[in-house]
């Protein structure tokens, strides 16, 4: 029974991903990709990874989908300059759309053959893979009581491999920096003016946004608190917060904009600063990110709260910076 479910789900995953990359119509490609993201959440549920299913659902369905759909409105139409990665025109001449030096189909064919060969080689390699020498789950279980939390994934994320998470929060903050630098480069465009007729259709989403936004806040708080002993945590909570902000923006209740004032900048940097401060403070009596066992749980909760706020603001900022700066 499980096998039937897995095989059907994998077939759906491969179908939706394949169609998303091959269908000529861009809107259908984005829809198929969002379907792929949601099917991935089901796959993570099947792989006993509820934390990832939560993150994939909140980030895949909520944010990536909204970002892509919002961008779709601006990116339709033919591509003027051939910006293919290894498309012949870029390999031979550095100025973009020069005449392709040798026929494109030769290169496309080569790329497809290479991709298929890679896929087959990977499949073969995976099937012949021996059992791993080290079993990390045993190590995690052994060290769980000293980690300060009850849920293994949160323990790995915030304590055992907390340094990865510190750098990853910096990556997210950095992406927003890049988006602000690019999108905010000029005066933000007028807020998207919705014609009177469309405004009538905004009444319903406004009602929904007013109901769902506080509920999303509640769910985010629940996920943050739950992270200590069951799947949840800062990323999923932050993503739900950001999804609420996206809904408010879509309903016209929250303005976009790519030039945050200092209060918002402080909020955006807050999570990273808290993490850095805790990482540095604990060095007083130990190594980087070595929480004193008695305080581990409290410190992790403090960091997670700061992260939820900053990740929520940053993920929302990624959407709002783009939607606010769009010229209608």
């Amino acid at each position, binding site marked *: 029974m499980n096998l039937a479910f897995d095989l059907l789900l994998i077939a759906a995953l491969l179908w939706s991903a394949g169609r998303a990359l091959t269908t000529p119509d861009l809107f259908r490609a984005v829809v198929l990709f969002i379907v792929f993201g949601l099917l991935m959440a089901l796959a993570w549920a099947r792989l006993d990874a509820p934390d990832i299913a939560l993150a994939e659902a909140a980030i895949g369905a909520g944010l990536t989908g909204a970002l892509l759909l919002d961008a779709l409105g601006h990116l339709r139409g033919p591509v003027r300059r051939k910006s293919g*990665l290894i498309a012949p025109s870029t390999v031979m001449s550095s100025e973009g759309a020069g005449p392709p030096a040798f026929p494109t189909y030769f290169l496309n064919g080569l790329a497809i053959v290479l991709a298929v060969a890679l896929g087959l*080689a990977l499949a073969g390699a995976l099937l012949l*893979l021996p059992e791993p020498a080290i079993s990390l789950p045993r190590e995690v279980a052994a060290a769980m009581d000293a980690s300060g939390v009850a849920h293994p994934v949160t323990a790995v994320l915030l304590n*055992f491999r907390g340094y990865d998470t510190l750098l990853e929060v910096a990556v997210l903050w950095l992406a927003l920096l890049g988006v602000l630098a*690019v999108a905010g480069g000029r005066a933000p465009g007028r807020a998207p003016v919705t014609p009177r007729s469309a405004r009538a259709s905004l009444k319903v989403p406004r009602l929904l946004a007013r109901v769902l936004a506080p509920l999303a806040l509640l769910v985010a708080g629940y996920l943050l608190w739950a992270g200590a002993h069951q799947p949840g945590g800062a990323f999923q909570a932050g993503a739900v917060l950001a999804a609420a902000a996206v809904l408010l923006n879509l309903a016209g209740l929250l303005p976009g904009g790519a030039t945050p004032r200092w209060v918002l*900048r402080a909020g955006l*940097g807050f999570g990273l600063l808290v993490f*850095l401060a805790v990482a*540095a403070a604990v060095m007083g009596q130990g190594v980087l990110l070595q929480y004193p066992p008695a305080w581990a749980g409290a410190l992790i909760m403090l960091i997670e709260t700061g992260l939820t706020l900053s990740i929520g603001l940053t993920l929302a900022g990624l959407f709002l910076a783009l939607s606010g700066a769009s010229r209608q």
Partner: protein
Amino acid sequence: MLDPLPWLILLPLFWATLAFVRGPGRGGRLAVAGLLLQLALAGGLARQVAGEGERVYAVGGWGAPLGIDLAVDGLSAVMLLLAQAVALPLAVYARAYYAAHEEGARYFWPLAGALLAAMNALFLAADVFNLYVTLELLGLAAVGLVAASGGAGPVTAALRYLMATLLGSGAYLLGVALLYGAYGSVSLSILAPLLGADAPLAVFLAAALMLLGLMLKTALFPFHFWLPPAHGGAPAPVSALLSALVVKASFYLILRLWLDLFAPLATVAAAQLLGLLGAAAILWGSLMALAQTRLKMLVAYSTVAQIGYLFLLFPLATDTGSVASASAIQGGVMQALSHGLAKAAMFAAAGTVILSLGRDDIARLGGVSSRLPLTLFTFALAGVTLMGLPPSGGFTAKWLLMSSAMHSGQWGWVVVMILGGLLAAAYVFKVLRQAFLPVEAGTQFKPVPRLLEWPAFLLALASLLLGLRAGEVLGLLGAG
């Protein structure tokens, strides 16, 4: 006193975040102060390694398989010194440069801080998945810096650069996934002893994927297509940072993986292939540089060429006896150091010329020798290192590589190196010749602040002094 190892990562993140919170365009003084402290820390760390040898730092106190380890040995200490030594003068240069370009400076300092934090974290990391996160942090920071000026050219170049670096990171990540599947750990110190020549197919695939991903990020020929528009189109301080440091980080990673993790899998055939690609990069990059009409594109293609020298060390160091391989590795690292310093100086000098002249086509550089003597001298000094003339660091590097080639009887690489040196001379003198022509009618030279010319000169001088003090640096390299 501060333990240099963790603070080299935390410090740049601190001042980058503070610069962001203080608002667009702010953070210049903060950055220079931070970098001064970082240079001191890097020096302290180098002395520690020279004294006590390699040092492992278990983050969170958990130790190898469970937690993440940071490790510093001679190679990483040297690269850390290079990163801080190039970044400090460039920070001073950038403050003067952006005094004239208000628009471009909006988020330069937070992005540059994040870039440096990523560099330091990468040089110190000893965990393959942690290396993936640092590579991603480095890639996004570099793309952000290229695109920050917002012009049409840089944005297109940044998008292509981002796609190339994401393809590289994806391949690297799949390699990490295969390694974890095969051995159950991602820590270098745990994986290295487990990996033997009899490794399963998946490990060979992982090695190929990881190295291919990193070659894409190092812009080794034929994956160099994204570098010239990105480094050529970006503002001068950004191009200097990228050409001098960012491509070196992924090269350092290839060297680290080739020497430590994948040593048993490293076949002579693969090494020869890397050598051939390096040779092709030298010839192709130099020829394209010679053909360029715009100054910064010439310097960008020169980067593509000089990266080729770095990859010559692989055929010279694989199964060629301990003496030849040691000298080849020292030559490669010395080339990375001297090129880092010289290329930063050259891009900075080019930036000064363009800022003063208002245009960047090589044919109309007349009068630069009389109006901007120090900048032209800096450009020439940096050219000396690129050409590999004594007593510059470039000469020491090429000499070590050549002696290794002669020792192991691979004469082909010697010919390539000599050809590369001649071509480098060609494109450097092409610029110098134009600069000595009389001033073109009707061109005004905007006055240039001193703080713009002296940091570039300092960098060029350092690339020269590196040649004279090579013994000390190579000693540190051997220590770890």
